[in-house]
Structures are given as C-alpha cells and as structure tokens.
C-alpha cells in the first residue's frame, strides 16, 4: 500500500514535469503559428505597397504616353495644314505658312518629341504606337534604382508558403495541446488508468512535436533557408 502511494507520488512529479514541458512546447508552437501568420500578413502588406507603387507608376506613364501622343497628333495635323497653305499660289497664305512654320511649329515639335519624327512610333495601320512609348517610359523608370518596386507576385507567393506552413503547423500545435489535456487528465485519474492516459498523452505529444519540427524543416527548405 505504502509502495503504491510512493509510486503514485513519483508519477505525480513526472506528470507535473511533463505538463510543464508540454505547456512550454505548446506556447512555443502557438507563438510560431502566430508568427507565421504575421509574416504572411507582413508580406501581403509589402506586396500591396509594391502593387500600388507599380500601378501609380504605370498610370503616370500611360497618362504621359497619351499626353505625348496628343501633342504628336496636334503637331502633325497643324503641319499638314501648313503644308497645304505652302502649296497654295496665294502669296499671303504662303507667308502665313512660313510664319507658322518658323514660330509655331518648333514649339509643337518639341512637345511632340520623340513620337512625331520617328516612324517606329507608328503602327503599320498608321496609328500612333502609344504602347511602344509606354513600354519605353516603363523601361526608363525601371533603369532608375529603387524607383519601380518589385512585382508583388513574389511577396504574395512567399506569403502563401507561410500560410501553408501555418496551416500544417496548426495541426501539430493542436496535437501538442491535446496531449496537454491528456496529461492533465492523467494527473487527476487513479493509478492504473492514469498510466494508460499518461502514455496516450506522451504519444500524442511526441507525434505532435515530430510533426511540428518536420513541418518547420520542410518549409524552411521550401523557402530556401528563410525562417
């Protein structure tokens, strides 16, 4: 009887130690699960900032490209009107055309540069190739270090990996938490039952721990060594 009581007390101590250990592991696993969600959230936030910056830059470049296209259109229309005047036999109109060519056209041509005088800015159908000008403006921006942010897709893809790891790590965290429950129950139960429950708790804990570590290692590999 006394021996059984001593065994029970010793088991009580072991269970208490195990409960402390599992509680610590549960806290650690919960922290890591939460940190993964946080990392994913940070990446999404970063991706949004990049997306907004990239979109603002593209919007400005489209506006700029179409503004230049409008200057080019106005220049070319004015030029053809002047040419028609120059081809007339009326000296007054010819003089008027000469004045326009000397005083009006240079300014308009400057605004219409580079699209007005480069045939590559025209499509085979004769329309202005605004897409080409836009692509050039985008390339010019990309050449300036730090001006154009990276595409948000990479940040979003990495966030998805964190989410994926969080999804699997939650399973491990739950298993560890479940083992804590079993260990607690074993502390309250009678001797024969408590050993069985204790074993169950330890098994679930070990399985949960191995699962969590495995998930962590696998995803660290998948992210190329990034924690």
């Amino acid at each position, binding site marked *: 009887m006394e021996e059984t009581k001593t065994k029970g007390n010793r088991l009580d101590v072991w269970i208490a130690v195990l409960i402390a250990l599992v509680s610590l592991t549960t806290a650690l696993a919960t922290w890591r*699960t939460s940190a993964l*969600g946080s990392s*994913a*959230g940070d990446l*999404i936030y970063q*991706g*949004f900032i990049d*997306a*907004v910056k990239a*979109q603002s830059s*593209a*919007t400005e470049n*489209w*506006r700029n*490209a*179409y503004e230049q*296209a*409008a200057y080019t*259109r106005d220049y*070319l*229309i*004015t*030029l*053809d*009107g002047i*040419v*028609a*005047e120059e081809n*007339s036999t*009326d000296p007054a*109109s010819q003089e008027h055309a000469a004045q326009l060519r000397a005083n009006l056209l240079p300014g308009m041509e400057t605004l219409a540069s580079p699209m007005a005088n480069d045939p590559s800015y025209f499509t085979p*159908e*004769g*329309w*202005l190739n*605004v897409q080409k000008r836009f692509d050039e403006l985008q390339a010019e921006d990309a050449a300036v270090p730090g001006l154009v942010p990276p595409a*948000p897709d990479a940040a*979003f893809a990495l*966030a*998805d990996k964190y*989410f994926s790891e*969080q*999804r699997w790590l*939650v*399973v491990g965290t*739950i*298993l560890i*938490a*479940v083992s804590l*429950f*079993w260990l607690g*129950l074993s502390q*309250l139960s*009678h001797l024969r*039952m408590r050993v069985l*429950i204790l074993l169950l708790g330890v098994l679930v804990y070990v399985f949960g721990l191995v699962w969590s570590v495995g998930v962590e290692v696998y995803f660290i590999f998948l992210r190329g060594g990034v924690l």
Partner: protein
Amino acid sequence: MNQSAQTNPDRWKSLVLVLTLVNTVLMASVSALQVDANIRANQANRDAQYYAVQITGGLAYTGARGDFDTNTYAISVTNTLESLVAGYTALLRQEVNDTQGYDALKLEEQIYQARADRATSLSVLQTNPAYGHGTTQTAADFTAYFDELFAPTREILQKQNNASDAYHHWNSKSDSYVAVLTVLAVAFFLLGVAQMTRPGLRLLFSIFAVVVLGIGSLWTLILLVF
C-alpha cells in the same frame, strides 16, 4: 444502480474518457478547419484588394486612351465638316462671281481637308474596321469600341467580385467554426463535470455532453458541405 455505484465509484468514467477523446479529436479538427478557413479568407481578401488596385490602373488607362481616341475622332470630324462648309461656301461665292472669296474659301477647304485627312489617318475609331467600318462617311461604332476598351477592366472586375465573394464566404465559415469551437468547449466543460461528479450525475452530464457534441458535429458537417 445505487448499489453498483456505491461499489464502483468509477462507473461511466470510461465512457466519459472516450467521449472526451472524441470531443478532443473533433475540437482539434474544427480548430484546423477554422485556421484553414481563416487563411483562405485572408488570401481571398488579398486577391480582392490586389484586383481593386489593378482596376484603378485599368480605369486610368482606359480614360487616357478613350480621351485620346475620341478627341482624335472629334478633330477629324470637325475638320472634315469645316472643309465641307468652306467648299460649299466657295461655290456660293462663285455663283455671285466673287473670285477672290471663292479662291480664299477653296484654299481654306484644302487646309481643313489636309488637317482632316491627317486626323482620320490617326483615328483608330475611323480607320479600324472593327469600329470605323473603314470609312469616314459613317459614324464610328462607339459601342464596339467601348466594349473592347473596357473588356480587360471588366474581366478584372469580375475576378475582384469573385475574390470578394470568396472572402465573405470563407470569413463567414471561419466565424462559424469559432462558434462550433465554443459549443465543443461547452461539451468539454460538461465532460469535465461528469468526470468529477458521482456516477448517477456522471451519466446525466455525459448525455448532455453527447447532445452538445452532436450539435457541434452536425454544425461542422453543414459547414463542410455548404
């Protein structure tokens, strides 16, 4: 019953233990499902916002392009009409033998026509057979033009709407799973009480717990199916 309970104070404890195990497994599964639903809601929310950013850019682009194309079309039509009016007026002046006026108006007609020709050549709305019928004599098909212009933005808008719907769907599921977890926590409490109490009450509390567990399981099934 009473005699048996008195002789065996651990009666029904095995049942309570099994029920606790079932509840634990169910709770763990629902927790995992809740986290999964929450992650999916986050991803859908992110997609919806990302598409919204793209839509903003798409609208800015369509605005700039639409403005340029319709202005070019308007310039072409205006100059064509100015040319026609100048030519017609020249004929009227010729009828009253006003040679000087006729010459001036003919030149004006040529200038406007030259300007109109250039504007027409630059006008997608007039020279693209998809909207302009390949002629300056008929009005451009603005419906076809704007349909094509807004098609990419509409496509992104559809994706944005889908992502937004997905977000609401998963967010609602996530919230419902939290409610299921609360129900299962109640089952845990009842089983805990059952574990501590005397055999007669233990069975009663176990029955209550089974009912609550059943509600939680059914709710989970409904959430999984819909």
